[in-house]
């Protein structure tokens, strides 16, 4: 028997009036130009409100529904799951209930706090029946990543904690437990998984936010369903659909594709039917009204020349020599055709050097062959020309940044990211506008701008001075000077220009003023403990904020000791660099690895994404794209498309990977994320062709399947 919530539908009446809420946000935006938030977009808010209303009605058992223990919200990335969950959290807290939110990490924890804070003034205006205030948000936001403190929650409070809260074994009674990215539980026996199982018993209701249902392991999905009250029937149906998906990707391809497609369709329909009461999901492509808000996605073709014979010979010789070494029991027992060899030379050259130090066991003939290949590789690599793919991508990147746009490039490997960062930094030109005011003028102008903006705030020297110093660095000065179209004289005139001119040389009401953007950035930095710490250290003369020297910035792990720390950050919590890239200032080119593909926004000033090196995982690729395709993206502000490029180095493994990935991504939404990772070397053309036939057959019958899980108006569920 599910305990009553004692929340009536009247208490979320405001959700029926998204227009009012959006209007309020727009008014607030005009009034307080300092606010970091862009005004809400009606189409998106309407859908988010409907989703929140549907979830609340199901949890509370309103409109003659049976109350449910929990709901799984599995919207595509970028649709604002956090917003929906924050609204629900406020309805609970606003009516005196206790809410606990489990975020995957500290960064996301702060993101939750921001989201909750964002709604306070709007709710106070539009939902006067709810008691909503900043004081209700609890959580230790300073850098204590492993904090396991169990807050004693009073009614009306919201605790934001990391997943680790679930693992401390203590009883944590709550009215609503929100688990963000619950699919990270990964396995029945992990501490988090066990902890979740335990604490959900102390929670009256559970809201789980997760990725596309079948992109996660089916066992995980089944476990999540059980957490929210699902039973064996649901478990069986998802397992059955998952098996049908696996059958397509792993089973015999000698069968009749039509029959396999029929089976897939049947299992998919059954699974969706069983999931409907428990799962709400929207696919980004199923929301035509909101496309303007996300930004239309457009294919971006970057022409890469075919690998030339020398490049291919170098790689093939490496493949050969690695195999000889492996067969002779050498150290190189891994992939002989390493994916990194196809997209850059850095790792290749390192491995060549390693192989050169190896003594190959085996007969004299084998040693002769080994040495011969090694010599040939060294001879071929003597011509230190940049990698062809990098060169072509570099030309395109150069063209993008010259037009005043930012671009993010994703790599699968750190070595590739490092090499790409260094290369792009060499080819991306510096800002060229001359006649900029002197440094002292800039300092004075920025001080004027920021002092007036933070007149009523705590604006200590230990934070502001390094920030102004950063704004006055050669790169940011040149960058901002480039945006200010006409000459200025003196600090006051410059300050006025900073206040009156829009960022990135744009004009129009949607764009922020330069001064406003700087204020937002400073606020964001100040709110992040790690950024605050960097500012304080900079004040003491130790280091500086990143992104003040080069137009290119790389973030990846373990850069080699010789790499330039101003160019490549080895930052385990890259909040600061991300905040800067998400502002109009600083680097225009960001090179990252998949560490940055989940849970981080990069969309606010960037609409160009290049998959320089793909991870062989369709979900990862989708997540990368989700960094830019989000509500209120730069694309939607500029009314320009989001451009996503999959450059492929023809003639190499890289090209093959891109071709397969494009096809698999096409079926991602159709199969509710059930598109498995693949080993590019194992995928055979004919088999993949057969799979595509199955998907194509199923597509005709499954076209609207995903939409069956969309939120419904609880007052009129049939509509």
């Amino acid at each position, binding site marked *: 028997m599910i305990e009553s919530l004692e929340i009536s539908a009247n208490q979320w009446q405001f959700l029926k009036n998204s227009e009012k809420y959006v209007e309020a946000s727009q008014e607030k935006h005009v009034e307080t130009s300092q606010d970091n938030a862009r005004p809400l977009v009606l189409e998106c808010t309407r859908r988010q409100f409907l989703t929140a209303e549907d979830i609340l009605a199901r949890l509370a058992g309103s409109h003659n529904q049976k109350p449910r223990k929990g709901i799984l919200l599995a919207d595509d990335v970028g649709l604002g799951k956090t917003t929906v969950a924050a609204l629900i959290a406020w309805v609970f807290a606003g009516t005196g209930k206790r809410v606990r939110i489990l975020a995957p990490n500290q960064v996301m924890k702060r993101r939750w706090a921001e989201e909750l804070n964002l709604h306070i003034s709007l709710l106070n205006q539009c939902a006067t029946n709810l008691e909503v205030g900043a004081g209700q948000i609890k959580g230790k936001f300073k850098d204590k990543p492993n904090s396991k403190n169990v807050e004693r929650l009073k009614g009306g409070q919201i605790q934001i904690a990391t997943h680790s809260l679930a693992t401390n074994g203590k009883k944590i009674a709550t009215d609503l437990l929100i688990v963000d990215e619950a699919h990270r539980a990964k396995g029945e026996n992990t501490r988090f998984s066990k902890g979740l199982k335990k604490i959900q018993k102390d929670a009256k209701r559970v809201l789980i936010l997760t990725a596309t249902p079948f992109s996660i392991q089916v066992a995980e999905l089944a476990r999540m369903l059980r957490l929210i009250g699902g039973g064996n029937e649901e478990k069986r149906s998802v397992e059955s659909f998952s098996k049908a998906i696996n059958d397509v990707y792993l089973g015999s*391809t000698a069968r009749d594709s039509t029959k396999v497609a029929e089976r897939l369709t049947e299992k998919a329909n059954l699974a969706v039917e069983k999931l409907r009461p428990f799962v709400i999901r929207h696919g980004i492509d199923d929301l035509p009204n909101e496309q303007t808000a996300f930004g239309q996605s457009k294919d971006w073709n970057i022409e890469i020349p*075919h*690998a*030339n*014979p020398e490049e*291919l*010979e170098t*790689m*093939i*010789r490496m*493949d*050969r020599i690695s195999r000889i070494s492996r067969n002779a029991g050498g150290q190189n027992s891994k992939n002989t*055709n390493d994916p990194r060899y196809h997209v850059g030379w850095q790792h290749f050259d390192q491995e060549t050097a390693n192989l050169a130090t190896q003594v190959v066991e085996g*007969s*004299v*003939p084998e040693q*002769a*062959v080994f040495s*011969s*290949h090694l010599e040939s590789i060294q001879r071929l690599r003597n011509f230190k020309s940049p990698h062809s793919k990098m060169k072509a991508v570099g030309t395109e990147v150069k063209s993008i940044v010259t037009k005043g746009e930012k671009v993010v490039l994703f790599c699968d490997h750190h070595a590739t990211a490092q090499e790409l960062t260094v290369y792009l930094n060499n080819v991306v030109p510096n800002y060229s506008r001359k006649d900029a005011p002197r440094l002292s003028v800039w300092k004075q102008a920025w001080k004027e701008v920021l002092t007036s903006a933070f007149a009523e705030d705590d604006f200590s020297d230990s934070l502001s001075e390094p920030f102004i110093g950063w704004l006055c660095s050669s790169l940011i000065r040149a960058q901002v000077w480039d945006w200010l179209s006409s000459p200025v004289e003196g600090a006051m005139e410059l300050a006025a220009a900073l206040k009156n001119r829009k960022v990135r040389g744009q004009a129009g009401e949607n764009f922020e003023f330069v001064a406003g953007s700087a204020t937002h950035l400073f606020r964001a930095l100040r709110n992040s403990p790690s950024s605050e710490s960097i500012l304080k250290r900079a004040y003491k003369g130790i280091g500086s904020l990143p992104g003040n020297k080069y137009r290119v910035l790389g973030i990846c792990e373990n850069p080699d000791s010789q790499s330039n720390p101003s160019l490549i950050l080895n930052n385990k919590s890259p909040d600061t660099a991300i905040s800067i890239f998400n502002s109009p200032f600083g680097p225009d080119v960001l090179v990252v690895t998949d560490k940055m593909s989940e849970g981080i926004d990069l969309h606010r000033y960037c609409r160009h994404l290049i998959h320089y090196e793909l991870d062989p995982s369709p979900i990862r690729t989708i997540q990368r794209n989700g960094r830019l395709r989000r509500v209120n993206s730069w694309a939607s502000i500029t009314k320009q498309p989001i451009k996503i490029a999959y450059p492929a180095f023809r*003639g*190499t*493994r890289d*090209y*093959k990977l891109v*071709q*397969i990935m494009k096809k698999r991504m096409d079926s991602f939404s159709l199969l509710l994320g059930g598109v498995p990772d693949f080993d*590019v070397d194992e*995928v*055979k*053309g*004919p*088999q*993949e*062709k*057969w799979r595509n036939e199955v998907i194509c057959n199923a597509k005709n019958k499954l076209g609207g399947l995903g939409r069956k899980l969309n939120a419904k108006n609880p007052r009129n569920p049939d509509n």
Partner: protein
Amino acid sequence: MNKPTFGWHSLLDSKRPENSSLIQALFTTYDRPDSIFLAEQLLPKLLNLDRLPNVEGLERQYFLIGLDAKLKELHDKIVVISSFVRDEALNENPSDDRAYGWVWNSIRHLMVGHDRAAVQHAKLWMLHWQDEDRKGQWLEIVISSTNLTGPAFKSQLQAAWSCCVLLETRTSQQRLKSWGVLPSFLDELFSSAGGHPAQDSMRELLSRAECPKNVSFVASVPGKFSDKELQRQSWGCAGLSKIRPGGAGRVTTHILCPYIGAWDAATLKQWLETFGGSADCLNLAWIDKSHPWAKNWILPESTRNVLIESESKMLQIWHDSHTEGDTSRFHGDHEPADNRWSHAKIYGFRSARSKRLLITSANFSPSAWGASNGNGLIEIKNFELGVCIEQAEAEFWDCLDDFDEANHAIVKKLQPMIAKILQWGQAKWDGQVIEIQCRAKSQENLIGTIEISGSSNLVVEAWQHDSATGHISAIVDWVDQKKAPLHVRLQYETANVTETMIITVFDIRPSRQRDKCLPPLDVDPETAQRLMDELLFDKYGGAFPSEEACDLMGSEVSEETDLKSVAFNDDYSVAAFVFARQHLAVVDNWQRALKNDSDDPTTRKRILRDGERLIEAFKRQHERDKKTEIEQNEHGISIGSKLAIEELKLLLQTFSESKVHD
């Protein structure tokens, strides 16, 4: 229809271990060996060929090249010894030699009668096998009544015995002795055929294995032998004394043969006495006049009369033309409607409970078993070979009944034996000249025509007579290395007599020159070369191109389809890597083969030679790959072949006995 166990293909079944390969072989036959049968039926089985000969298009070309390659590998290791059959010109099928005459460039065909007249009538196969990992070797011996011709397999019922014995590493005289007359039979046979190294190697094989228990051999060799000589070496009927069943009393004899010679009472008595038999205990299985076999089975009336007069029994092999050819069955698997005629030669000897079954090539004739020539000597005209199995018996004799002598299928008399003018021949080509040798009673009226593959015939202009050997010989120039001579047609023609002898030409050039000759293919030379190269790659584990293309496409490829374009357009494979790994895998497998066979000099030499051939093949492949690169606008395809050449050269350089030819 025949059951599979009794169909003609069963005669090709081997007892060898799975995945074993042939090292050498000896076949003997009476009739001139049938090239088509050899090439399309026997050799594909023995040489593990996986392509089909009778399929149109590329498949057949692959088959021909595959067969040619295997035969070149086993050059002079397969020996066929036959008789010269005078009337072979009449049976000659011209398309036979045109299609497969080239196989005799690699298979040594010998004729008996090098020194004196002889008839080779034995049907012996000796097959030397080696298993896949080259750790074990076997000798398979087949003794039967089957000639190496298509009709012998497809239109005749045959009796056969076979065994497959494991070969020891070392030779032993004791083991050799266990084979009884067989080693001496081989000596005589090879000697009559003009000699060949296979004689020693076959003897050596026999000395590496024990003869199976309860088995002994009975052989005949042509010649005139005194009793003393026959006591020392029991040829012909003397051999029967060695296999007579034990126990006292007379030996009952059963005979099933399609050809019965001219026996008189005395000769018959003499033959029977050698093993303790008697005429009244002799049973001859025979047919009536209306039997379908009557046109093939021969019994002279005189012999029939001798048999009846000596109270021998004639037992009827029954046949009913009204009941779908129902006939007496030889055993349980023998289908009643079998329309093949029996060519089996089976003898059964019984004395009390002691039994012997003789499976042999020897018909019941004095030529086969020998008969007194009136000078106190026993004269045998034929090479015959049989195997005697102790305590074995044919079941069907008990089912046969006497029948009315008026119904006996008989002939009035046998065709008189006319002495042949042409008696023996052989020919070989060393790349410069074709050397022909023959034994003929007359040099006059002798015409020699040499058929050359893909070229017009040559005529032998001058014959030489060697008084020492009595041979007639000729030497004809022929230097075109790509067109090998196939055979020499010797024709002796007078107003009264016409005789034709076909002598195959054996290619004795070094292997590098031999490689230059291709079998006649229905494709242009460039394609032919490509197919040959592919088969060589295939030999060392290279992915077979058409299979690869099928795999890439996921469906069958028609011949008209452009394989390359399909492979490149509809696939995710990285072409340069696929090609490179495929080619370099060939190098790896070649190197592995060399390592595994480093102890065997012959095999090692062959593999090293293959290394050289691979370099040449990869050079050609490199050119083809470069062409593909241009056609498909796909770089890097040719890198793999380039690297394969580079590696092979390096590897070969380390072996002093091998030379790389650029």
